Structure formats: C-alpha cells, structure tokens
C-alpha cells in the first residue's frame, strides 16, 4: 500500500535519501528510527509528496502521494507543521473535519486528542505540548488508512504521551497503518511491531525490535576473572560481536549468549559475578550505526 522504489533525494552535495526501497503493509505500526540527519524527515516529506524524489518512485495506495492525500487516505503530523493563528481549537479542528472526506464527529476527535477542555482556547495561547495535541487532532480528524507522525510526542508529558500511544494503538487495531519517526527508542521498542533503522539516507535494518536487537548482538555478558587473561583467547569465543577487557573485568556482546558462556567455561576460566542481560533497543541501535560508521571509515582509509 506504501512503496518506495529506489528513491533518492539530494540537497546540493548531501544525499539525504540514498536509494531507499520500502513496503508498508496495512495494519502495521512502524517506527522510523535514526540519528539526526539520517534522512527521517526527508523520507517522510517524500512519502507525503511535500518534496519530489530525484529518482525512483513513491507510491501510496496505487497512486501519487498528492492524490492519496486528496482522497483523505493519509493523515500526517509533522514537526514542521504549523497551526493557523487567531482561531479557537474547536474552529481549527472543525476546519480539518470539513476538509476530510470521511471525518469523525468533532467531540470524538477532541476527546481522543484530550482537547475537550481546551476547545474554546485560542490556538496561539496554547503550550507546546498542547499545540502538539492540536496537530494530532488535525492528523486524525477523519478515517485515514495511513497515519504519519514525525516525533509526535515531543513536548508532551508522560501521561499525555501514554494517552497518545493508547489512541494510536486503537488506530492500528482498526487496521490502519501507523508510521512514526521517533528518537525515543523505548517508544519504538514498546509500540512498533516493525522498526526501520535509517542511517545516512539508507535502510540499515528493517525488522521487529527483537530482530534488530539480535542483529546488533543482543546480549550483554559481563564477568570478572581471578587473574588477567589473554585477550586473543577471548576474541576467539563463538557468537562474539564486541569485546572489552579492562583489568580483570570482561564485557562481551554476543548474539548467542549460551554458546559464548559455554565456551568461556571451555577455556578453563572461572567467571565470577557473571551477568547476562538483554540489550535495549538503544544500545542495539548505537551498535548498528557505529558498526556501519566503522566500516565506511575503514573503506575510506584504504
């Protein structure tokens, strides 16, 4: 229903989007993850037809982004999206309803965005988090098949954030596709059933949060040894993705912790204070992007 084929976009010498192929499916909740400058916002701009790709095609529901939007199939909330000034919240949401071919009732939209009490306030007088909720209300004023959110919970407090994701889960459960860019990795971990990691304008990883963690070396193993040990022997351990020896403390990242720990005993070592823990998505993400940066730096050096 959403597809990117060989999409590129450059601004001057910067390749913001460097050959992206993607498919999104109905009912998916997809997180778009990446460090600043990874191409998240550019990708969303291309998806929404706000910018045209230099090459490749972006297809929404079998047509162009502009047409899909005109048909009321897409709701979007952008960081860069501003609000009309000098109007009341109720009036602005009313406008969004009027422009949407399949609008929800006004009270329902206001309730879902937790704006009922603010309906008669002027938009200009709202706090950042409250304005963010108004943007959300505009993006969900009608029955969209695809909802695109760029850093949606920026400026929201914890309870507003929870309420927000509650609403989004309900949208996804109703068969809508939700695509959101975020830098809150715990949000991606907790909410998305698919995580796409962007880095330097390319798709670095695409899978469930668990898969991404596994790819990056999902387990962290740490232990102390009685005596200093030869690093070379440890480096030969199976399933190892990273090794750090400081004094008698050893820290390992492994994609198969059972095999690695077994092999540690096999070396005749006796690890004390052994800890085996899962990596968070954040660490996985850092490991993934750092690995590519190392690889490119290596290539450049050759």
């Amino acid at each position, binding site marked *: 229903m959403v597809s990117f084929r060989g999409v590129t976009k450059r601004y001057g010498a910067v390749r913001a989007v460097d050959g992206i192929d993607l498919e999104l499916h109905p009912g998916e909740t997809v997180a778009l993850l990446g460090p600043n400058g990874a191409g998240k916002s550019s990708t969303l701009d291309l998806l*929404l037809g*706000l*910018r*045209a790709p230099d090459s490749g095609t972006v297809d929404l529901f079998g047509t162009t982004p502009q047409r899909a*939007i*005109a*048909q*009321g199939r*897409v*709701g*979007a909330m*952008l960081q*860069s*999206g*501003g*609000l*009309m*000034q*000098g*109007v009341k919240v109720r*009036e*602005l949401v*009313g*406008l*969004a309803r*009027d*422009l*949407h*071919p399949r609008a929800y009732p006004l009270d329902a939209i206001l309730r879902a965005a937790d704006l009922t009490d603010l309906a008669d306030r002027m938009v200009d007088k709202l706090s950042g988090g409250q304005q963010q909720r108004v*943007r959300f209300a*505009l*993006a969900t004023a009608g029955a969209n098949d695809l909802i695109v959110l760029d850093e949606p919970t920026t400026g929201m407090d914890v309870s507003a954030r929870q309420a927000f994701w509650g609403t989004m889960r309900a949208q996804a459960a109703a068969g809508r596709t939700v695509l959101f860019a975020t830098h809150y990795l715990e949000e991606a971990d907790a909410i998305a059933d698919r995580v796409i990691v962007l880095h330097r304008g390319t798709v670095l990883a695409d899978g469930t949060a668990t898969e991404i963690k596994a790819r990056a070396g999902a387990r962290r193993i740490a232990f102390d040894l009685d005596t200093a040990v030869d690093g070379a022997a440890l480096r030969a351990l199976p399933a190892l993705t990273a090794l750090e020896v400081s004094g008698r403390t050893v820290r390992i990242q492994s994609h198969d912790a059972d095999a690695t720990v077994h092999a540690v005993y096999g070396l005749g070592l006796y690890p004390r204070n052994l800890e085996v823990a899962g990596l968070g998505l954040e660490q996985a993400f850092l490991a993934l992007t750092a690995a590519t940066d190392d690889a490119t730096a290596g290539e450049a050096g050759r």
Partner: protein
Amino acid sequence: MTTLILLEIRRALRNKKFMFFSVIYPPGLYLIIAGGADGARMPGMRLDMGMYYMVAMAAFGAMTAVLLGNAEQIAKERELGWVRQLRLTALPGRGYVGAKIAAAATVSLPSIVLVLLAGAVVKGVRLEVWQWAAIALSTWLGSFVFAALGVAIGYLATGDAVRPISMLCYFGLAFLGGLWMPLTILPQWVQNLADYVPTHAYAALGTAIEGGTGPHPKDVAVLLVYLALFVSGAAWLYRKDTRKA
C-alpha cells in the same frame, strides 16, 4: 473550502489592528484629506475634491486590505508551517490562495462602503443610484488585482523582507496611481508613466463613473493585463514553493 473562507473572515474580524487599517483608516483618511476644501475643483479635472478622493480612498482602502493583509499573512503562515500542514489535507492547492483572496475581498467591501457612505453623508457627494452601485462594484472587483499581487509577494518574500517589499509596492502604487494626490500636479512624463500603473487605472474606473460614463476600456484592459500578470506570477511562485518547501 467554505469553512476555510469563513474561518479566515472570522479571524480577520478578530484582528483589531487589521480591521483598523483596512476598514476604519480609509474613510478616516478620506475625511481628513478632503475635509477642508468643500467643493474645490481638482486641478485639471472636472471633479471636485470630495468626489475625487472618495473614489481614490475607496480604492486605497480596498488595496490596503487585500494587498498588505495577504502578503504578510501568507509569508508568516509559510514560515510557521501552516501552509505545509494544509498541504497534507484534502484541500486542493489553489484552495488556500482562493480562500485568502475571498476573505480579503470580503473584508475590503465594508471599507469601500464606509468611504462611499462618508462621501454621501459627510461630504455631500450626490450621484445617481447606478453610479453608487457601479463605483462600489468596480472598486471591489478591481481589488482582486491587488489581492493577487499580495499573494505573489507573500510567496516571494519571507520573514523580514515581506514588510519592506509590500510597503514599497503599496506606497509606490498608491502614489503613482494618484490615490493620495492628483497626478495633474506632477510633471507630464510622470503622468504618461502613470497611465500604465494599475492603481491609476483602478481609481480611473470610479472617476469615469462619477463623470457619468462607464469605465474606459483602456483602464479595464490595463487592469486585466495586470491581473493576468499577478495571478500567473503568484501561481508560478506557489508551485516553486511547493517543490521546495
């Protein structure tokens, strides 16, 4: 689309500064300028000051509302990202510009009527019924030329540049069009040049009607050419903005 127009109008009515400059200011200025010299002939014209300035100020007021209002608002809303947000709704691309022009034109109408009312009640201007109606209608229709110019400026400039550019156009056009003082007191070459300034043709619509005839075809033609020029310029700038922003 209708909701957007209504909302734009309601918002304009709430904006006291905008309302002052577009509705109260033109009739006020008219009474001040034409105040002292009742019945005095305009130099080199058959009209008296009350009649001349009534038309000139009606044109000036309408231009204030549509040109300054549109230029500044569009530039500001582009910067805020509201235009971008609207582009993500089912509103067709032309809808935003259309609503802006429609709303500005709605606000300019009361200012035109107030100037004419001040002319009739305070300055004792007497005209046939058809002349009143024709002046109001032609001044209102003519204001669309400047609404389009306002849209073009709004898409051309951003931030701090908008006000100087729109003010330069506004004052330049008002002066060269003879809206503040008749051009007959200026050198002949300025008068020759002014024949092709849109505001001059704009005010000439009204003065011709006051003289008892319909608007001159030449003035109508000049305005139509400018309308085409400003509309296509605005459309081109809008498309450029869509590709970039």
